[in-house]
Every structure is written in structure tokens, then in C-alpha cells.
């Protein structure tokens, strides 16, 4: 279903939208800007206080012990500090950006495989992707849409997304864990993706 952005403005607020979550997302954008322009340690402390425990929780869920989870969280947050300047050209929320940093850290550490392929694409600015003026305005809308859409996924789809993105399970592993055919995991994954993509169509 395509939801026009205007639906979310003014009194036409979606019943499932969460203004508090959106304020938080907007605050995170401000904090990252302060970190990149002023090397603002107070802003960094606030961002750390919010994301540090969440990143650590994800690392624990995918099987890291407490020390390793702490270490990966510190690595992730250090990269957030060092690369804050690149955030401006990232077309997404602070949460999505930090998710990708954490993802790359865990691939690096657990699989002992090169993350160059991820770095290569994430670290590049493609000539045809240059950010336009509306990006920062849209970031807020986009964040609210994604949070609502993710939270509103039917449980059987949410489960698949959670296992993949939080527990870092491959589709084959998910199929065997849930005792369902691989094809079913794939079709649920596609359905989850399409729900998000449809709603994001105008703000990506």
C-alpha cells in the first residue's frame, strides 16, 4: 500500500504513528551533526547512552558473550564518532546508519571474512546518488514510516526480519530453526520487504 507523505502531516496523523519515536530520531540527527561539526563530546555521550545499550543487546542476541558484545559495541560507537562527517551523505536515519556500522563490525569479527565488499559500497558516494536539499526534511518522515511499518508487520513476517537482522541468521538457518521450507522464508522475506518499500517509495 502506498501511503502519501501528506497523510502524516497535521491532523491526519496515522493512528499507529509514534510522535515520541520521531522526536527521538530527529534528536539523533542533531546529535550526529554536532559530533561532526563541533566534535561535541556531550552530544556523543547522549548518543552513546541511547545506542550503546541497544547495540550491545543486538550483539548479545546473535551469540556474543558479555565481553565480546561490550567490545563490539565500543568499536561500533568509535566508528560512529570517527565517521560522523560521512553521515550527511547517508540517506537514512541515525538508527539505520548505526545498524550498518554494527553489522559490518560483527561480520568482521565473527566470520573472519573480509568486509571489504560492504565497506566498498557503504563508503562510496555514487555520482548519481548525491544528496538533495530535501534529504534532512525527509529523514524524519522516513524514520517514522519505517518504524511504524516495521512495528506493524504481521508477526510471522516480523519473526523472519528479527531473526535475520537481529540474530544474524541466514535464510537457510531460519528455515531450519522454524522448521519451514526455505522457499517460505524467502517469500515471507519478500513480503516484509515489499511492505516497507511500498511505504518508503517517495522518501528514499
Amino acid at each position, binding site marked *: 500500500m502506498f501511503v502519501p507523505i501528506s497523510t502524516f502531516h497535521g491532523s491526519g496523523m496515522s493512528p499507529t504513528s509514534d510522535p515520541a519515536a520521531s522526536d527521538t530520531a530527529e534528536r539523533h540527527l542533531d546529535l550526529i551533526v554536532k559530533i561532526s561539526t563541533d*566534535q561535541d563530546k556531550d552530544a556523543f555521550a547522549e548518543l*552513546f547512552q541511547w545506542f*550503546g*545499550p*541497544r*547495540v*550491545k543487546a*543486538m550483539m548479545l542476541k546473535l551469540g556474543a558473550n558479555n565481553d565480546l558484545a*561490550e567490545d563490539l559495541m*565500543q568499536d561500533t560507537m*568509535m566508528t560512529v564518532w*570517527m*565517521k*560522523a*562527517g*560521512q553521515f550527511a551523505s547517508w540517506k537514512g536515519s541515525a*538508527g*539505520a*546508519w*548505526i*545498524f*550498518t556500522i*554494527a*553489522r559490518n563490525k*560483527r561480520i568482521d569479527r565473527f*566470520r*573472519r*571474512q*573480509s568486509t*571489504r*565488499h*560492504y565497506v*566498498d*559500497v557503504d*563508503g*562510496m*558516494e*555514487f*555520482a*548519481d*546518488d548525491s544528496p538533495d536539499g530535501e534529504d534532512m526534511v525527509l529523514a524524519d518522515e522516513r*524514520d517514522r514510516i*519505517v*518504524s511504524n511499518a*516495521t512495528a506493524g508487520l504481521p508477526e510471522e513476517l516480523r519473526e523472519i*526480519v*528479527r531473526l*535475520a*537482522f537481529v540474530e*544474524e541468521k*541466514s*535464510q537457510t538457518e531460519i528455515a531450519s530453526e522454524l522448521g519451514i521450507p526455505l522457499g517460505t522464508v*524467502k517469500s515471507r*522475506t*519478500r513480503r516484509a*520487504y*515489499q511492505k*516497507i518499500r511500498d511505504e*518508503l517509495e517517495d522518501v*528514499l
Partner: protein
Amino acid sequence: MNTTHHPDEATLMEYAAGTLDEAFAVTVSCHLEICPDCRKSVRAAEAMGGAMLCEQVGAPVAEGSFGRLLEKISAASGEGGNTAPAVMEQVQPQSPGSVLPAALGSYIGRNVDEIRWKRIGPGVWQHPIRLSDGAKSSLRLLRIAPGRSVPEHGHGGQEITLILSGAYRDEIGYFGPGDVADLDEDIEHQPRVVSDEDCICLAATEKPTRFKSLAGRLLQPFVGI
């Protein structure tokens, strides 16, 4: 670059989640370099990852965690480490065929002319690409002469092929530069090169592929695909 065939959405989701094995992740990366649509798709999927992260109930960080992090940061700057915002590398998407995709650069460089091809059959050459020790998938470049075909084969698992130059046609359709054939194990196909030049493609496979025809089975030990 307008491509017709893209990775399956389920594959792009795995890429975004970070759960694709190395050969597949590299192949998808190479496609992303030239496909703005799929880059958008990956961004949408990563946004879902961001939402999942934000929903987490936090786990307590170690006592003094933030202080230690600040010490690490100042130590890194004290050592001349660069904590200033890094400058983004501007990458002009290349038309495939002129040079290899950037994502292959760290593996085999980017110059097609420097590839050492090994002939594995009439009109078919390959160049295996060495991956990390833990990789469960394998990656190779294939070069197939005009009019030649790879023996009809089913797959022992997933197979993702990216066309870098030239073109082939199979039961599914026409695949030109930038196109991706994202096939699961049920698919059997027999691609035939239809371009005037050799077709060079990057192929990621999960398990050894089994050829159906006798010739294919005889060829398999040499092809290794």
C-alpha cells in the same frame, strides 16, 4: 546502466542484514555499483535493520564504558589517528567491461586484461577468486566465447551470476551487462552466449554444481562449477 534482471528481493534483504556468504555478498556489491534501484532497495532494508535496532531493550554497558571509549578516541588522535570527518571517495559508476567492479578490486585488481584465464573447455575459461578462509561459497570469473554454452545444469544450491560484459540467453531470458541471474537450486538452465564478443561473468555458487549431461559431468572436475 539499465539492467533488466536484478537480485531477488530476498537476496537484497540478506545482503542488508549481513547474512549473505562472501561470494554472494561480493557479487551483489558489484551489481549495486551500477544499479541505483537496488541501492535504494538495500537502503530500505537497512532502514528496517535500524528500526529493529531502535526497538531493542538495551543491555547494560560495562561500568565506565563511555570513559574508556573517549580514552580510546583521544589515544587514536594522539597517535596521529584521524578523527576528523573522513572525505568520501567519489566513485563514478563504470560501465562494466571496461574495468572490473570496485568491489572486486581488493581481490583481483580491476584490470580485465590482467586476469590469468585458465581454459576449462572449448571456448570456456575461468579464473577462481580466492575468498576468506571461512567462506562457505565460491566465486569465479567465467569467460565464454560467442555461440558457446555452459552445459545444462541444475544447482546444488543458490547461484548468483552477474554479467560484466557480453551477453547470454537462456530459458529465462536475455542477460546483458549489469544483469544478475539469481537462481535457486530448482532452476536448470543452459545459457548460450549471444554477443559477438566473449561473455565475462562473475559467478557465486553455494555448493558444487552438478551437470546433467554426460559431457557436463565429465567436464565438471575441470570446471569445478
